[in-house]
């Protein structure tokens, strides 16, 4: 009996130590994860000298809104911002549309060559042609689009980018989980293929569709590389906002990086504050919806254990 009590005490002590370590580590990590954004917000509203001399630690020092105001007044920034909204909205609708239709067809056992179609999709996850062939192909696409009258490169971004085979497979698996009896019942009642999809399958896979829509939406909002490669420096009014921010960062590097470059800067706010303000503007929409969507993401990841 005494030995058991002794064991119990030993266990409790080590559990307590472990728990303290766990709490400490998690709290530090959680703070580190949000701190850069808080710091960015504070720095965006601090005076130029305070930011440049590194006086800002947590709260704004010598509060002023000039840097943020400069961003608000920046016309091209907001044109690009609306481009991002445009690309996010239409890109998500387009990608979700063809993904749902394709996933529905792929989920049907009666589809001829089902394994072949699946392979067609999955192969793109295994092998990608690489940057140069993709770039060449996008250039060809742009010239074809120009030929048929689509000169706005925003549409190239919407239609030709942001493919994700994993999302289609998530949808397919969710559709496969719908009991076949329900579909048969609907078919006997005279429902067409499209009606079965919209009236039976979509309502039953709401959670997956929401998750996949969010995956598409976030990747569209955050997309940079190909948008920049395809648009380049010619059509600045078609840039997504991410390209604009990157472009400003490069200007900022020459402004502050060369040491002597600071002499060309005549404002009382720091160029660094402008960067922070842009970051805040670009992050706000994600932060606004993030608390509501993060549970879907957790679900989406756990749906990933895919079998075939």
């Amino acid at each position, binding site marked *: 009996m005494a030995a058991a009590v002794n*064991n119990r005490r030993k266990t409790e002590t080590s559990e307590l130590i472990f728990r303290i370590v766990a709490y400490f580590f998690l709290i530090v990590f959680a703070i580190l994860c949000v701190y850069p954004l808080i710091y960015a917000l504070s720095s965006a509203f601090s005076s130029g000298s305070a930011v440049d001399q590194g006086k800002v630690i947590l709260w704004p020092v010598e509060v002023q809104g000039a840097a943020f105001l400069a961003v608000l007044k920046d016309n091209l920034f907001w044109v690009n911002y609306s481009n991002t909204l445009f690309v996010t909205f239409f890109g998500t609708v387009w990608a979700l549309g063809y993904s749902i239709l394709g996933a529905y067809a792929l989920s049907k056992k009666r589809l001829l060559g089902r394994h072949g179609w699946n392979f067609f999709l999955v192969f793109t996850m295994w092998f990608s042609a690489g940057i140069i062939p993709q770039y060449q192909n996008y250039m060809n696409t742009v010239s074809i689009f120009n030929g048929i009258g689509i000169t706005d490169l925003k549409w190239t971004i919407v239609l030709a980018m942001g493919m994700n085979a994993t999302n289609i497979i998530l949808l397919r698996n969710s559709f496969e989980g719908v009991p076949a009896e329900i579909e048969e019942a609907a078919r006997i009642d005279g429902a067409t293929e499209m009606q079965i999809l919209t009236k039976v399958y979509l309502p039953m896979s709401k959670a997956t569709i929401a998750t996949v829509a969010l995956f598409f939406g976030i990747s569209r909002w955050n997309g940079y590389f190909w948008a920049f490669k395809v648009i380049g420096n010619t059509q600045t009014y078609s840039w997504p906002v991410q390209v604009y921010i990157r472009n400003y960062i490069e200007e900022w590097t020459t402004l*502050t990086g060369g040491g002597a470059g600071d002499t060309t800067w005549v404002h009382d706010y720091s160029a660094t504050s402008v960067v922070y303000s842009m970051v805040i503007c670009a992050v706000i929409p994600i932060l606004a919806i993030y608390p509501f969507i993060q549970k879907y993401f*957790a679900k989406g990841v756990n749906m990933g254990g895919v079998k*075939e």
Partner: protein
Amino acid sequence: MFKLKCDDFLIYDEATGTYSMSPEQQVRDETEKNSWKSAGWTILKDWRLYAMLIPMVLVYFLWKYMPMYELMACFKNPAYGDESGKVASYTWAGFDFFKELFTDKTNSPLFWRAFRNTFTTAFYGLLFGFPMPIILALFFNEVRSNIARSIMQVCVYLPKFLSTVIVTSLVLVLFRSNVEGSVGIVSKVFQAFGADPTLVNGGLVYTTKYYRAIYIITDLWEHAGYDSIVFFAAVIAVSPTSYEAAQIDGAGKMAQMRYVVIPSILSTVVIMLIMKIGSLLSVGYEKIYLLLGDGQGAGGNWEVADTVSTLANRWTGTHKSMGTAAEMLNNLIGMILVIGANKIARKASDVSLY
């Protein structure tokens, strides 16, 4: 005389010593022939289902498979600096560009450096990036209050949803430093530990010495929290009675970890590890591209930062065929790794991602 082992579709006639088709196989063949004949009918009758496939197949064909046609450029010789030409009109060059990739005096070292960096970046990412989410998941399991845990989880998942441009912008700004003493807050921390950021214009990211550490740390910051979701799901699936039994046997926390938790989540860990190894070579080029300096003075981190993707990106205009060849080699090795990893995962646990 030996008899062929094909009873299921052939019948051996002892008297004549010949084979004839078994009646069952004849029926099977007949149905197959008919099913091929009726395949057209099936599609016609069911055309709505096949029409649904068309948009997806078209998108994937145009923007995933057409680039593979452009891959042909690595066996062909474009006019120098030709970016707009059609690949079909180039003259064939065979394996010349592959040879050049391995033997050319100026370009071959660049390729090998990029290839080495791709591997080391991926390897360090795996070494530090893989255990971290598991540790986080184990720690999350210790938090008894649901509210506290939810708040922490919301915080640690957050960086995953920031774009690469935002993350790299923050990195460049927070790690900045210049000779006039404008120093980012993280550079200050490095300073406290003995680094001298004032010597490096542009920031610590652009130094050969600190680039890797910064890359790995920011990668952990971005992904560790989100990646812990899978492991956390596995950890909370461990039954509380197992812990109780271990406690009664006098197991301390470490022993509980060793004998209860780790064995229960091992299959998840193994699968995730295999998958990680499979995608080893597809290191996110966007982030590397955005953190790459200009290669001279401030921005001299190419020695450790340049990967095959970023090298190919630089070669887009000037060494089109060689860049294509370099990246194709890289991606082929990547593909072999993915397929191999899947095979192993399937054998190990009946779970496979594809």
